[in-house]
């Protein structure tokens, strides 16, 4: 019997084959290579589900496949690691990729786009890179595919490269994420140099090495082992912050909305942006050993969650609202991981992948309905004209806003609960919790502002009165994701477990290795012990839980209710005008682009100029000085060669006499 895991590389290689097929034969194929992509991702999904079932059957797989560089101290290899976390992520990625491919038939093909061969080839390449990143069993391989998804993101954002804005947005996304990736690369080198291994799991992993180094009290470069682990962890975190669009490297994501909406759904909502958070979860054992790194993760996450949510409130473009909401939701995941809520973070990652892909595809459907109009003020009244789009979008919005019992509520509530019980013991985390809690209100508000402006009220433009019809290839992905957005929360009903005692926290058991053997050091409980976090309660666990849930639910309803009052009217007005100067600040995104440009032009450029001047004058001056001295010297010396034989003879004789005299002086003849 062949093991299911033998086929694991095929999960990633199928989309690679689709990439090649679409690239080479795309123009001659029906739908320009879409079917190749759909077949390949469907195959990946089936294989992923098989892996999932096998992992559920109690096996994990951790194998090196190919050593591509063998050294004395360290060996670089490609390998596959399939444990509950990566099996879950594989299913999420391949499912969303498949649905996006199907949706593309309606969004791209039906609209008569040119360059479809390029589009499907790049989509295939992205799916390959993302799945290979998820499968990676070592940090270097993860880094390589991390970069490759960044490249695909760049290519796909710039899909409409003939416009002015898309190439510039693509370049911005590439450069900003690359800025974070520099730190990631240094972190990878540092981890490899310190621990001599880059594998994630097993006895010889860098996580285990770091743990034993801390226990043995070793020092690296004069620093304690824990400090060194913190530094390495923060370096890797640089890549995470860039890729998962966390403050301060989030500015690329809203601009990335220049790409096709399908691309936004796949790359900039469900999968690639998740790569950063997934990486933190992947090496959570490493971060768990450094309370400082975890606290920084929590605060970056909490701050980003609030910060991005406030900016989402004033946007008029439906995709911009979703972009800021994505940044904010990834902030929640980072907050969850930072407070030790490994399960909560991964749970929200899963739910968010479903409901945000749904919302983006829903926005894509709206854009089809509206004949490629994205301004929400020109929509309205689409509720009755496109019921499938409306109800699926509503399901996603309820999940996003965190309304019980939709999926987003369960995961967001769990993150906030984990932050609260940690904050009660270590009050500093209460600040991160508070930021996350306030963000709930803004999330509820901007989500329902979007829903009401888009679907309710009277149509405010000709396109909204007579929308373009939607095909089945648009509706099916929406319905699948809509169902998932409603029910995915059932994977881990932790509050119900704590209140009613029903044992239905499947995801926690799943990530705790309850169904599998052979994942020592990588289970939720071991992570919790490593972090060494103490938790406290108000009264009892149940009361704390109820207070936390009531607070977040109340705020979500508050935000949604405010949006209902302000915008669920036949002719909504632009109430954000009343915010005055605050609105200007928010619409300018807190002037962060300006700040970043200032950092580049006002700070980096003068420093670079000074370095250039130093290089030109001092460094080059020394080099040129040395050479001009030798040039001048040799210019004088060469005149010895006169071309006249007699002079040479005289020189030989004089030289000989000088030699004899010299020998005589040293030999003591004249003493």
């Amino acid at each position, binding site marked *: 019997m062949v093991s299911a895991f033998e086929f694991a590389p095929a999960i990633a290689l199928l989309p690679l084959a689709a990439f090649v097929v679409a690239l080479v034969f795309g123009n001659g194929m029906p739908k320009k290579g879409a079917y190749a992509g759909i077949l390949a991702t469907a195959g990946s999904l089936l294989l992923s589900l098989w892996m999932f079932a096998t992992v559920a059957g109690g096996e994990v797989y951790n194998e090196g496949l190919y050593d591509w560089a063998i050294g004395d101290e360290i060996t670089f290899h490609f390998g596959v690691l399939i444990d509950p976390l990566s099996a879950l992520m594989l299913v999420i990625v391949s499912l969303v990729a498949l649905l996006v491919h199907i949706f593309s038939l309606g969004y791209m093909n039906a609209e008569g786009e040119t360059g479809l061969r390029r589009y499907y080839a790049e989509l295939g390449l992205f799916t390959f890179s993302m799945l290979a990143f998820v499968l990676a069993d070592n940090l270097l391989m993860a880094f390589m595919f991390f970069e490759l998804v960044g490249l695909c993101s760049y290519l796909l954002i710039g899909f409409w490269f003939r416009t002015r804005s898309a190439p510039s947005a693509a370049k911005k996304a590439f450069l900003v994420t690359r800025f974070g990736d520099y730190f990631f690369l240094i972190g990878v080198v540092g981890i490899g140099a310190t621990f001599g291994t880059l594998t994630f799991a097993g006895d010889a992993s860098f996580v285990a090495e770091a743990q034993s180094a801390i226990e043995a009290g070793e020092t690296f470069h004069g620093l304690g082992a824990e400090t060194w682990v913190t530094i390495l962890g923060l370096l890797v975190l640089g890549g995470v912050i860039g890729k998962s669009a966390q403050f301060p490297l989030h500015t690329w994501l809203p601009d990335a909305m220049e790409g096709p909406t399908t691309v936004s759904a796949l790359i900039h909502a469900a999968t690639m942006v998740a790569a950063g958070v997934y990486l933190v979860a992947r090496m959570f054992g490493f971060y768990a050993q450094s309370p400082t790194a975890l606290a920084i993760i929590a605060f970056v996450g909490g701050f980003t969650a609030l910060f991005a949510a406030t900016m989402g409130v004033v946007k008029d473009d439906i995709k911009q609202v979703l972009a800021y909401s994505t940044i904010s939701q990834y902030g929640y995941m980072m907050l969850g991981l930072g407070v030790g809520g490994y399960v909560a973070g991964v749970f929200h990652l899963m739910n968010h992948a479903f409901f945000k892909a749904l919302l983006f595809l829903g926005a894509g459907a709206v854009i089809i309905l509206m004949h490629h109009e994205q301004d929400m003020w020109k929509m309205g009244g689409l509720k009755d004209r496109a019921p499938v789009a409306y109800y699926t979008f509503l399901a996603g919005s309820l999940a996003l806003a965190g309304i019980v019992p939709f999926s987003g509520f369960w995961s967001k509530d769990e993150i906030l609960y984990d932050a609260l019980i940690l904050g009660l013991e270590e009050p500093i985390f209460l600040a991160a919790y508070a930021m996350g809690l306030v963000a709930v209100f803004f999330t509820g508000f901007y989500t329902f502002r979007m829903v009401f402006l888009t679907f309710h009220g009277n149509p405010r433009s000709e396109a909204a009165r007579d929308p373009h019809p939607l095909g089945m290839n648009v509706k099916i992905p929406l319905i699948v994701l809509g169902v998932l957005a409603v029910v995915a929360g059932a994977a881990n009903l932790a509050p119900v477990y704590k209140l009613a005692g029903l044992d239905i926290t499947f995801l926690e058991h799943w990530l705790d290795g309850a169904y599998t053997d052979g994942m020592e050091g990588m289970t939720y409980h071991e992570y919790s012990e490593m972090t060494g976090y103490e938790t406290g309660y108000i009264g009892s666990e149940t009361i704390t839980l109820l207070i936390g849930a009531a607070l977040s639910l109340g705020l979500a309803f508050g935000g949604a209710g405010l949006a209902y009052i302000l915008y669920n009217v036949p002719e909504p007005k632009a109430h954000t005008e009343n915010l005055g100067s605050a609105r200007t600040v928010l619409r300018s995104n807190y002037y962060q682009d300006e700040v970043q440009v200032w950092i580049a032009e006002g700070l980096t450029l003068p420093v670079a100029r000074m370095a250039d001047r130093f290089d030109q004058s001092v460094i080059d001056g020394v080099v040129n000085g040395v050479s001009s001295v030798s040039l001048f010297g040799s210019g004088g010396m060469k*005149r010895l*060669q*006169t*071309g*006249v*034989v*007699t002079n040479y*003879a005289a020189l030989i*004789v004089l030289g000989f006499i000088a030699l004899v005299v010299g020998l005589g002086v040293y030999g003591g003849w004249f003493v």
Partner: protein
Amino acid sequence: MTVEIHYYVLLSAALFCIGLFGVLTRRNALMFLMSVEIMLNAANINLIAFAFYHGNLSGQVFALFTMALAAAEVAVGLGIILVLYRNFRDVDVTVPSAMRW
């Protein structure tokens, strides 16, 4: 009666200095070549004198080799002088000074 060894050395040194003086001062290539020959023969005198002094024949044999070499050198030198004359219509060694920087 035998001549003392230091007379040979003095003769040889005198001949060598005459040859050296010629090499350094003469411009005529033929005189140049002759001066070189005088220096060679000064060395030969030394070789033979000391061979006689030590009762060892190898110095005299060596002098024979030197003579053969000198003959060959003269042949080459005269060849160079002929070419020199053909190119410059002159045998002054300071005229051809193109082979320099």
